[in-house]
């Protein structure tokens, strides 16, 4: 193949002019960040806080998944497995050692370590063969992990999962700043208690992880990964050790997913297959990445927000739609909130067909030269 006509394919960063679409995406993401930052004050009700915390954790999870699928072009179905390992490690430690930061630290570390070991194993074993093998192997690995989690119920709580208490510092009963009566003072009407501390623990941890990932994709490693994704053979010829780079990013993704799992476990005070390991979560991740835009960290933020809001609020809408059309044939069946996944699936297929660059990608003009 000709090497003569090839200019430098890695020139995307050289672009100085910032197009309007790109600015728009940054503005949206900053706005989302601001809303999340003040979420406890903007939306004091419990459900909205749960939504905000879920968005924080999932931004980390989806962005780390995007490191693989978008930036490196490797399709893994084991991301929820790593997420689950982090969560289960924390949960089991909290359950057996009692509520304490030492339990979170130890259990979380073990979860992260297990993720890392598994990621190295899977990576070295299968990243040297075709991408498609990798997808199958990770899917098989994730399913096996799911089965193991339900079979070893004496440790994991099986299908039901397990509840546990988290350190008292994070409980609503803990007063951070007391007024003269010994009660938590209210800041803009929000009690300065442990629950608020917990939210900010989740928010700040997520923010740090997200910024770290932004740093990774802007680093030389990110550039190499993109070169590999664009042309594996060429990258190999230039002398990049493709397998080593892929394995390392797979490990980074796995570790970050496990860290996100710790956050999720601490926030929810519950860990079970349906919130961590299940295939439904994996599908959510895929949808979020594709809706937001593969290969853009900003897209992860947008995808997570849209999907999470839709999940929490659109299902209600579907239920009322089904009720309203209950005497029309077929329609109530289709609008049944249980059919939510059907519509997501259809939407997903259409998106991959027509907007493979997703929202952020399309706005930022990444879809142009596809």
């Amino acid at each position, binding site marked *: 193949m*000709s090497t003569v006509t090839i200019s430098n*394919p890695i020139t995307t960063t050289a672009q100085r002019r910032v197009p309007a679409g790109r600015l728009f995406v940054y503005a949206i993401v900053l706005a989302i960040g601001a809303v999340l930052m003040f979420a406890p004050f903007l939306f004091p009700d419990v459900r909205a806080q749960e939504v905000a915390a879920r968005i924080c954790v999932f931004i980390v999870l989806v962005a780390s998944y995007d490191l693989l699928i978008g930036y490196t072009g490797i399709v893994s179905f084991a991301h929820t497995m790593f997420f689950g390992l982090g969560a289960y490690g924390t949960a089991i430690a909290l359950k057996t050692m009692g509520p304490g930061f030492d339990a979170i630290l130890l259990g979380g570390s073990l979860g992260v370590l297990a993720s890392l070991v598994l990621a190295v194993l899977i990576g070295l074993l299968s990243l040297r063969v075709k991408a498609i093998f990798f997808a199958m192997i990770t899917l098989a690995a994730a399913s096996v992990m799911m089965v193991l989690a339900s079979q070893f119920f004496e440790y994991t709580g099986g299908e039901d999962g397990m509840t546990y208490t988290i350190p008292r510092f994070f409980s609503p009963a803990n007063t951070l700043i007391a007024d003269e009566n010994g009660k938590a003072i209210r800041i803009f009407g929000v009690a300065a208690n442990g629950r608020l501390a917990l939210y900010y623990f989740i928010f700040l941890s997520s923010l740090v992880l997200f910024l770290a990932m932004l740093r990774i994709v802007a680093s030389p490693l990110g550039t190499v990964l993109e070169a590999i994704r664009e042309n594996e053979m060429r990258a190999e010829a230039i002398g990049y050790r493709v397998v080593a780079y892929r394995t390392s990013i797979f490990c980074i993704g796995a570790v970050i997913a496990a860290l996100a799992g710790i956050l999720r476990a601490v926030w929810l005070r519950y860990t079970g297959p349906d919130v961590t390991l299940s295939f439904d979560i994996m599908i959510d991740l895929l949808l979020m990445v594709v809706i937001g835009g593969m290969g853009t960290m900003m897209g992860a933020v947008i995808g997570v927000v849209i999907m999470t809001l839709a999940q929490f609020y659109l299902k209600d809408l579907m239920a009322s739609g089904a009720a309203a059309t209950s005497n029309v044939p077929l329609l109530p069946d289709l609008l049944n909130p249980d059919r939510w996944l059907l519509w997501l699936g259809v939407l997903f297929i259409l998106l991959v067909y027509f907007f493979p660059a997703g929202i952020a990608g399309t706005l930022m003009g990444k879809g142009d030269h596809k």
Partner: protein
Amino acid sequence: MSESLLRLEGVHTDIAQYHILHGISLDVPAGGVHVLLGRNGAGKTTTLRTIMGLWRARQGTIRFRGQDITAMQTPDIARLGVAFVPENMGIFGGLTVEENMRLAAHGGRFDSQRLRHIFEIFPAMEKFWHNQASSLSGGQKQMLAISRAIIEKRDLILIDEPTKGLAPAIIRAMIEAFREIATETTILLVEQNFHFASALGQSVAVIDDGRIVHHGLMSDLVADQALQNRFLSLSMEAN
């Protein structure tokens, strides 16, 4: 060259994001061997693959016997009477020699006269008829690839570097075989081996950086040392 069998006009081809052919124009008259010379990466293979429809021309036209084949599918181009012998020879290693040949024979039946003729040109084919193709040597594989291209009568055979990696003795035999084959068909040959190319070629085109930089009779190129220095350094420097 008014009556050309194959004519390329301003053909541009991209592979992924890379622009490989920058407006190739080429005339191949009917009959004889015509050679495309050029160094590695100049776009020779891309030219053949674009003619065959395996890569799409972004711009320009390709005509075969006057018919526009630019946008045609590979199988349809093949059925017009174009055979292709790729650089890796495209042998099906899991199939026997016979099965490889049978695939190319019309309706899966052999014309016994043509088959006998092929056995005369390449006796090894008869000898290894029932062997697994993957067990053949490099030279035998090349013979099989060429036999497969001529088991039916074709009007044009595109051959990509048939001498690559072959021993000099086999190359000498190949020259004889090609002369024989060229009596009934037209061959467009991509080569780096100038000795082989000059022994066979009637016309020659030199390609560099996705463009035709010289086009003329092979005899002129052989006779003109200055031309050779200019273009063969281009075509040979990579070796």
